[in-house]
């Protein structure tokens, strides 16, 4: 299974729905809640998000090489091979 990384905001309902979906599918993932980060760590993560998605929106989910912005369950399922 390709590595999964989720960039989210702790206050965003769509991010929560994405987490819920991944948990229900028993997918392990690296979660980064950007609004809880500070200083250089936050800056670095924001640069990372911009580099991989050319924008800065949440949720942004990376599945292997695929980047999906927003909670699109069908596209996430497909990228996970489910």
């Amino acid at each position: 299974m390709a590595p999964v990384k989720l960039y989210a905001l702790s206050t965003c309902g769509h991010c929560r729905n994405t987490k819920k979906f991944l948990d229900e599918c028993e997918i392990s993932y690296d979660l980064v809640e950007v609004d809880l980060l500070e200083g250089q760590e936050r800056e670095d993560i924001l640069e990372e998000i911009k580099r991989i998605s050319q924008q800065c929106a949440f949720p942004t989910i990376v599945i292997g090489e695929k980047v999906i912005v927003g909670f699109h369950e069908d596209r996430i399922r497909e990228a996970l091979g489910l």
Partner: protein
Amino acid sequence: MSQVEKLYESLKKLQEPKGYFFNPDKDLVFDLLRGLLTNKERYGYMSCPCRLAQADRDKDRDIICPCEYREPDVSEYGACYCALYVSKDVLEGKASKVQVPERRPRELMAF
């Protein structure tokens, strides 16, 4: 009544006459309202729960809920960026919700 339920009732009364209705997905709505209350505690204002705030009221002015983009987004897509508010048609199932793209100009994001 909990704080989030009070917020729900007060906003509902305020916003519906203006043509903005809460998303029928009540779990999502309560999640987003909790996000607004969290941001109010953090920053002193209800910054949009689905956008990264900059903890500066002036820089975040356009995304203080209801954000400046709600009106054009609801009229064009039937929902605001967060899908907290939807149009009457979407509420009544006459139109379907779509994922609303970010309308906010990049230069306002400042990152």
